[in-house]
């Protein structure tokens, strides 16, 4: 049914370097309609959303607004065309008030001056929409820095609404809202539909999608693979659309039987940290334990807490003995190594040499007056083992390719002979060849009895490497998957929250 507005995205593609974020995505939405955009991790949902709102420029494909081709160079341009978005990563400025944030860049003016009173009143009217489901703290003059995540999310929604959009994109907008607030938001969305707004609802939560959306568009590996009206489909059908066919490839041969009979090498009990809300886990010697789930469910935070890089409460036991890890140095002493995901920022000193980077955590073992000759020999050995392709150990790390740089990060920890390896999405942005070598190395380490806790945003990797996978959602472990039931569909179902809660 054609409405007053219609947006049509056709055959959009976007690649970042060698990584294809979006291959061939299409989406149509028109007035009075709520379309759910679905897909597993890395399926390209947020890239598609960002292209529509002008935050990302596509490599190819067309975007039609009311039948005419448009090209947005910035979010501002898209907003002028009537497209507003609520992102999960918020766009609020903490030191400004709610009113200032909501009306930023479209303040009510008279003769060049901002009409504060009007801005305040308009903000109060917008806040009325959420009356009864937010506390009194949320008022026009409140500073955003003093608000809870849920309240900030509401301010973000109102900010998008304040532009009077004809097309609204809600990207995981319910992530930090509580039940009442979600219910209120959905009432509002129904109202917007009546008024002729077109809504694109990006979410992983099946239950919400069935409550609010009319139609679902499913992306898989950057392609639109299916579409369904929600009154005539089921969760199972949607999930099967989200999942690749065939059997996942195993990267490592696992010997039969449980890996470790003895007591776990590492265990955590009711671990809490920012983003982690009570996680218990056990990691056996020589086990590769995966952390799965959608992105941003507390997995990196969990790894950081286990490395002593985030303050935590709860207990961490190493070989049955309680350990207090209040600093990475302590974790390192206990034989724990952490390979961070954002290697440019956290893992490497880009302008320093490969040698220095490899040796950084280990210098202590080379005497007060550093025995550089011995260090160089060890560095050469590890570089050889890892197959780091480089000119010389003295070249800066910035000369290496992504895969090789990641090997340096891994190598610098392996030099310390760790017992427990924490990996935070280690193959993100790494080419296929280097991935293979990394997998092989994890297999070797596993044989040597090193325990690995691996978070990956790539489900295939979890399926191909892990003995067990813990699926996380909202900072908790929701499901544990072991060999027979460790399948694509089980992983996706547990991630999006259908099926049994664990």
């Amino acid at each position, binding site marked *: 049914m054609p409405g007053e507005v219609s947006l049509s995205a056709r055959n959009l593609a976007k690649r970042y370097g060698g990584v294809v974020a979006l291959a061939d995505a299409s989406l149509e939405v028109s007035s009075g309609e709520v379309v759910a955009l679905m897909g597993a991790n890395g399926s390209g949902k947020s890239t598609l959303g960002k292209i529509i709102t002008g*935050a990302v420029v596509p490599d190819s494909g067309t975007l039609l607004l009311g039948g005419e081709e448009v090209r947005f160079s*910035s*979010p*501002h341009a898209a*907003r002028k065309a009537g497209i507003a978005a609520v992102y999960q990563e*918020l*766009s*609020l*400025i*903490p*030191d*400004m*008030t709610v009113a*200032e944030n909501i009306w*930023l*860049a*479209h*303040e009510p*003016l008279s003769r*060049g*001056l*901002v009409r*504060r009173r009007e801005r305040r009143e308009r903000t109060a009217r917008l806040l009325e929409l959420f009356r*009864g489901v*937010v*506390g*009194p*703290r949320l*008022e026009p*003059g409140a*500073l955003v820095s003093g608000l809870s995540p849920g309240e900030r999310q509401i301010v973000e929604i109102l*900010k998008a609404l304040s532009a009077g959009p004809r097309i609204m994109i809600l990207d995981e907008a319910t992530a930090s809202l509580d039940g009442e607030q979600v219910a209120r938001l959905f009432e509002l969305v129904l109202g917007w539909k009546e008024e002729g707004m077109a809504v694109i609802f990006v979410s992983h939560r099946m239950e919400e999608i069935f409550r609010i959306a009319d139609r679902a568009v499913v992306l898989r590996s950057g392609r639109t693979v299916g579409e369904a009206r929600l009154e005539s489909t089921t969760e199972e059908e949607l999930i099967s659309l989200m999942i690749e066919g065939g059997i996942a490839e195993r990267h490592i041969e696992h010997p039969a039987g449980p890996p470790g009979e003895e007591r776990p090498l590492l265990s955590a009990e009711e671990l809490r940290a920012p983003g982690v809300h009570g996680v218990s886990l056990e990691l056996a010697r020589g086990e590769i334990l995966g952390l799965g789930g959608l992105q941003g469910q507390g997995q990196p935070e969990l790894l950081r807490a286990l490395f002593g890089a985030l*303050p935590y409460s709860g207990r961490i036991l190493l070989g049955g003995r309680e350990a207090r890890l209040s*600093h990475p140095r302590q974790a390192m002493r206990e034989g724990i190594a952490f390979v961070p995901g954002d290697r440019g920022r956290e893992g490497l000193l880009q302008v320093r040499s490969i040698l220095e980077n490899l040796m950084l955590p280990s210098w202590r073992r080379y005497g007060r007056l550093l025995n550089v000759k011995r260090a160089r020999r060890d560095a050469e050995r590890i570089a050889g083992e890892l197959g780091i392709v480089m000119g010389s150990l003295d070249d800066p790390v910035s000369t290496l390719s992504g895969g090789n740089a990641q090997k340096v990060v891994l190598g610098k920890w392996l030099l310390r002979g760790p017992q427990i390896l924490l990996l935070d999405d280690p193959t993100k942005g790494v080419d296929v060849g280097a991935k293979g070598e990394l997998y092989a190395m994890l297999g070797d380490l596993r044989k040597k009895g090193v325990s690995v806790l691996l978070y990956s945003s790539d489900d295939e990797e979890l399926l191909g490497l892990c003995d067990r996978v813990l699926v996380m959602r909202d900072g908790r472990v929701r499901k544990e998957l072991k060999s027979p039931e460790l399948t694509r569909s089980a992983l996706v179902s547990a991630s999006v929250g259908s099926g049994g809660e664990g």
Partner: protein
Amino acid sequence: MRAAQALPPRGRLREVALRQSYAFALVLLLAAAAANYVLQPNFFNPAVLGGNLMTYLPLLLLAAGQTVVVIGGGIDLSLGAILSLSNVLIVSTLGESPDASRILLAVAAGLLGGVLAGAVNGACVAYLRFQPIVTTFATSFVFSGLALYVMPSPGGSVPQGLLSAYQSDPLGLPMVFWAAVLVLLLWGLLRSTRYGVYLYATGGDQLSAFVSGVPVSPVKLASYCIAGLMAALAGLAMTLSTSTGDPLIGEPLILSSIVAVVIGGTRLSGGQGGVFGTILGVIVLGLFQSIVSFMGVPSWWQTLINGLIVVVALAGPGLLGLLRGRRP
């Protein structure tokens, strides 16, 4: 439902109080004033006080400009050099016994020089994405060099009429008071424009501001231009207070301008603060100086204290974090 919280008072005052802490400035102000009073009981005699504070008029204008840049997320170390540049531009354009149009031309030259210098800084920072500290440190030498080129050694003079106008007390209050009032009014006006909102947004979180549609680069450029203009006005005030041109006169003021901003509760990382606090900061510095000179302690004490204040202000957030047991 959520627990009801005690609602704080509404409105502008509260907005200001939430954003900026004047507590530090006020405590220092009271302490310094009390010390001055003890040392020099006639200190609060309007004539003495006015004379004392008049010396701080150039700093007041300079620090107000610095505040604008700092709120926008930058810093300008070249404002002292810009002050000198405008000072020598004005004096050298005046020449001997100038007429009224010559005087106007001289002032215009000085102010234009300041704005252009600010624009150079702003363009480097906003469009070429240079680091503000390094950029403006480097350009401070460029502007100093230009000032030395215009007037290699101190000299020149200013007509007596201008000097006495500057020293006059309209309505019985010294010029520095009127300057402060004017600066505050202009600042209030700026705060009420869309530009004012943009400035805080840019300094608060550049990326968020950008995705919200704030023209971040022009906003930054303008903040440096405003600071350049204020430095040039400070140069004019300096010209009238010293009645000569001196190509190196502004340099020593740059640290003080940053100290005044810091004392006034403006955060050096941007997005928070205001000019009123800075004015309090300037007064505090003036009172300090008067204590130092009255007690006859060596003047490097003042420099030392100024430096310490900046260090503490920079370390402050980190120290607070440490005390709360958080790591960065």
